[in-house]
């Protein structure tokens, strides 16, 4: 009996309930009636090549809609204790190179980055206020890390980008850097890049069409 519940009843119910969208659509309509905008939270990592492909794509998608892109950099990602973590890092690089090529971009970096190489970027970005300056910094830093260089990551180079985009000094803050990780776990994703909108989450590099379809369904379509 318990086998029937765990193998059939629960998964079938999860699937059926996943198609219910009216509560999210209702909340979005209420927000519009108040004059508000949509919100798309994007959890990403600077050491993740798939994030380097997904963040610019979703930045463009959100800019075309009345949707605020909330960038949430994650320093430590993945399933804890995953035995395939190094294989997955290599696979992510191969996959991201193919995705980038489809978008007309060539990734220069051929070896995975270690999380420690870019943790300082996640901590800086997590401590900064959301807005165009942060978005510009994240886009430029991801481009520099994956599309413009293949060598070691030097903090001074990224501090220069920070000064250019946010007009100040980055604030080192590991405590702030941990907040997006905790929020990501609460929202549901267990890895990056992950986009959350209207109570649903998606792997951002795999499902760009699903994400924009969902934003459309919520009523956050492309502006005329």
């Amino acid at each position, binding site marked *: 009996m318990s086998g029937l519940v*765990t*193998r*059939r009843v629960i*998964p*079938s119910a*999860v*699937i*059926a309930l*996943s*198609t219910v969208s009216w509560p999210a659509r209702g909340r979005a309509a209420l927000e519009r009636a108040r004059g508000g905008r949509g919100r798309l939270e994007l959890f990403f990592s600077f050491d993740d090549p798939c994030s380097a492909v997904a963040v610019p794509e979703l930045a463009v998608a959100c800019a075309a809609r009345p949707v605020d892109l909330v960038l949430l950099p994650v320093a430590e990602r993945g*399933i804890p204790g995953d*035995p*395939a973590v190094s*294989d*997955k890092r*290599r*696979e992510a690089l*191969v*996959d991201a190179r*193919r995705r980038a090529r489809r978008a007309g971009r060539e990734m220069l970096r051929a070896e995975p980055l270690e999380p420690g190489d870019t943790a300082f970027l996640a901590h800086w970005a997590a401590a900064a206020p959301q807005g165009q300056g942060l978005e510009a910094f994240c886009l430029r830093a991801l481009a520099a890390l994956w599309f413009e260089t293949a060598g070691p990551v030097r903090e001074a180079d990224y501090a220069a980008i920070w000064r250019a985009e946010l007009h100040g000094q980055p604030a080192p803050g590991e405590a702030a850097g941990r907040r997006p990780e905790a929020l990501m776990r609460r929202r*549901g*994703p*267990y890895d990056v890049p992950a986009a959350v909108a209207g109570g*649903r*989450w*998606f*792997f951002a590099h*795999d*499902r760009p*069409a*699903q994400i924009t379809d969902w934003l459309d369904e919520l009523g956050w379509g492309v502006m005329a």
Partner: protein
Amino acid sequence: MTEVEFFFSFRSPYSYLAAPRAFALRDRHRIALRYRGVIPMAMRGQSVPRAKQLHTLRDVKREATRLGMPFGPVHDPIGTGAVRCLLVAEHGAEQGRDREFVLAAGRGIWAEAADVARDRPLRRICERAGLEWEGCRAALAEPRLRERIEANTARLAELGHWGVPVFVLGGELFWGQDRIADLEDALAAHETAPAA
């Protein structure tokens, strides 16, 4: 003829989504698509967190809708059911009916909640795939077929991969039902490349 290996698990709903397009590659390209059924990841000592299990069901439902495929009600075949399907699929491959069986079993498990650990639902799937039940039942106890499944599973590990569906073309790996377009690009390049 160019060989493409197709690593598949009956416990993987993403494999179910991939299978129709994977076997259709045989129709569109001059390739030998080699079906390689593997033992489910969760039966190979790799744990799947709850969050991942839930996300997979929701994500597959959305992808299935996009692809025009039914998804749900389901009956998770982990354990005996998955192994029985793997054995029958090997038998089906020997009969030239791997495609028919894999598609029928996928639909049974992931869209009709067929409990393939039981004889009656499995028999119905076998017959739908054009396989005689007596031959399929004999396959369930065939050590030679079991060895082949273990060899497929070992081959996937040798390739440095953990999940399914995976396609291998000339040493290059393509992971995921949503990466078949990348495989087709590589196949097109392969087909137009001058012979060495």
